C-alpha cells in the first residue's frame, strides 16, 4: 500500500495519479494497481507514465469500475500497487520514432525521456492530453486530433519505432512499416489476472508461439505479433 500524492483530471475522464514512494521501472513496464478492499477483485495493469526519486505517476482513462475507483482517490488515501512488471521497450541505437494513440501515449513518456532525440507522434480521437509533458523533453512532437496519426509518420526516416495504441492504429503502422528497414516494437494489451506470468490468462498467440503479455511482453517486435489474435479479444 502506498499513499496518493495527487490525482487530477487532465481532461474529463483522463487522470494523472502521483503516488508516494521509491519505485523502480523502465519505459514500457507496468504496475498492477488496485483500490479498495472489495470489488473489483483483480488489480489493473497500468503503464508507468513517469518516475521521480520519491514518486511514480500513472496516466489513465476511466473506462470501468476499476479505473473509476482510481479516479475517486484523493490525496493522502491509499492504493495497492505492485511492479514493475513486463519487459518494457528495448534499448536501441539510431533514430527513433515514438508513435502513440490515445491512452497509448502513456508508456511513451519514459521512452521520450530516455531518448531525447526521438521524434514523438501523438494521435487522439477527440481531444489531446498530456502533450506538454512530451514537449518538455522531446526534440519534436507532432500531434493530430481526429484522423490517423500514422499518416504523419514516415517509417523510412527511422531505424526504430516504438508504438502503443488501439489495434487498428498499430496495424496501420505495421503495414506502413512493412516495406521499410525500420524495426517496430509495439506494446500490446490483454486482460490480466496475476500480472507476473503465473496464470496464463494473458497469453497471446505470436509467430513465436504462445507468449505471456505480462512477462514476455507487453512489448513485442512487430514481426512476432499475430494481428488476428490481437483483434480477437
Amino acid at each position, binding site marked *: 500500500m502506498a499513499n496518493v500524492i495527487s490525482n487530477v483530471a487532465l481532461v474529463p475522464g483522463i487522470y494523472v495519479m502521483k503516488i508516494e514512494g521509491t519505485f523502480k521501472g523502465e519505459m514500457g513496464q507496468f504496475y498492477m494497481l488496485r483500490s479498495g478492499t472489495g470489488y473489483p*477483485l483483480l488489480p489493473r495493469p497500468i503503464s508507468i507514465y513517469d518516475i521521480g526519486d520519491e514518486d511514480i505517476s500513472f496516466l489513465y482513462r476511466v473506462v470501468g469500475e476499476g479505473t473509476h475507483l482510481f479516479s475517486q482517490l484523493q490525496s493522502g488515501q491509499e492504493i495497492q500497487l505492485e511492479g514493475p512488471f513486463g519487459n518494457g521497450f528495448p534499448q536501441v541505437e539510431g533514430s527513433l520514432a515514438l508513435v502513440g494513440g490515445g491512452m497509448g501515449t502513456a508508456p511513451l513518456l519514459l521512452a521520450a525521456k530516455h531518448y531525447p532525440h526521438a521524434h514523438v507522434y501523438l494521435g487522439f480521437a477527440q481531444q489531446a492530453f498530456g502533450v506538454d509533458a512530451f514537449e518538455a523533453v522531446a526534440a519534436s512532437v507532432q500531434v493530430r486530433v481526429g484522423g490517423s496519426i500514422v499518416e504523419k509518420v514516415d517509417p523510412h526516416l527511422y531505424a526504430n519505432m516504438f508504438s502503443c495504441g488501439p489495434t487498428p492504429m498499430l496495424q496501420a503502422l505495421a503495414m506502413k512499416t512493412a516495406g521499410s528497414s525500420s524495426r517496430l516494437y509495439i506494446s500490446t494489451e490483454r486482460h490480466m489476472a496475476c500480472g507476473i506470468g*503465473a*496464470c*496464463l490468462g494473458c497469453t497471446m498467440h505470436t509467430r513465436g508461439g504462445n507468449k505471456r503479455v505480462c512477462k514476455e511482453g507487453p512489448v513485442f517486435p512487430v514481426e512476432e505479433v499475430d494481428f488476428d489474435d490481437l483483434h480477437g479479444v
Partner: protein
Amino acid sequence: MISMACNIAGVPFKNPIIMASGTFGFGREYAEFYSPELLGGIVGKGLTLHPKAGNTGSRIHETASGMLNSVGLENPGVAAFLKDELDDMTRWNTAVIANVGGSNLEEYVQAVAMITENAQKRRTMNRRGVDMLELNISCPNVKQGGMQFGIQTEVARDVVRQVRNVTALPLVVKLSPNAENITQMAVMCEEEGADGVSLINTFSAMKIDIRRRRSVFTNTYAGLSGPAIKPIALRMVHQVAQAVSIPVIGMGGISSVEDIIEFTMAGAAAIQVGTYNFVHLHAGAELVYGLEQWMQREKVQTLDEIRGIL
C-alpha cells in the same frame, strides 16, 4: 507450541495452506516475491500427457467478486514438466502436488503412469519427486461430446479406478461443483481407493459481450472462481466431509484467515488458495502468517481442535 502441521495420505504438510492448480504456475514466478517454503504445498498447473496450447481469444473476465477463466489447460505436457520444472519445485521444502487432466481415459492413465514412474526412479536415486497427485476430472471428455468427466459419478468412476490401478502415489481426486451429486462423487472416490478428495473446481458459467453479441469466450462457457463462490464451496465441503472418511481439501474463494477457519470447521483437512493469489501477490505468505497469529490469539494449538466441529 502451536502447530499448523497436517498429514494427508501420508504426505506431511507444514501447514494446511496449499496453492491451487492453475493459479500459481509451477511456483517459479511467485518465488520472486516470497519463499514457497512458507507454504504447506503447491499444486502445479494442470498437466496433460501432451503439451497443450490452450484456448484462443479472451481468457479472463472479471465478474462480481469473482473471475471467469478459459485458459484451456495450456501446459507443457507431462514430459516437459518432469524435465524442466520438477527439479526446481522439489528443491523447495514444500509439498509438490501434480495436477493431471486428460481428454480421454488413456491420456489420464498414461500421464499418471509417467509421473509415477518418474517418482519411483527419482526415489531410487534418492531425489524428491512428485509427492502427491491431484486428479482433475473437470476436463472435457472428447469422446463423449465434450461433457466433463466429473459430472456423472459412473463416468468419473472409470477414470479414478484406472488411474488408481497404475499409481501408488498418494492420490487426491479434485471434484467439480458441476457434478450431478458431489457427495456421491466423493463416496465413489473413497470406494475406488482415492486417498483424498479436493473441492471445488470452477463453476461452469458465462459472460456475454452485448456489444459484439457473442460470448466473451471462444468456448462459450468459462470457469467461475473467487469469493463469489465461497458460500457454495463451503456448503459442498461440509456435505462431502460428512460423507467420507478420507481427507477433504477445501477450496473456492478462500481470501482470508476467517475463510480458512470456516473450511476447517466444515471439515477440511487442508485448503487451497486460487484466485486470491491474483488479488494479493503475497497472498500465500499473508495467509500463513495470519493463520498462525489467529491460532495464537485464539489459543488453538492444532487445527484438529476445530476441524469438522459442525
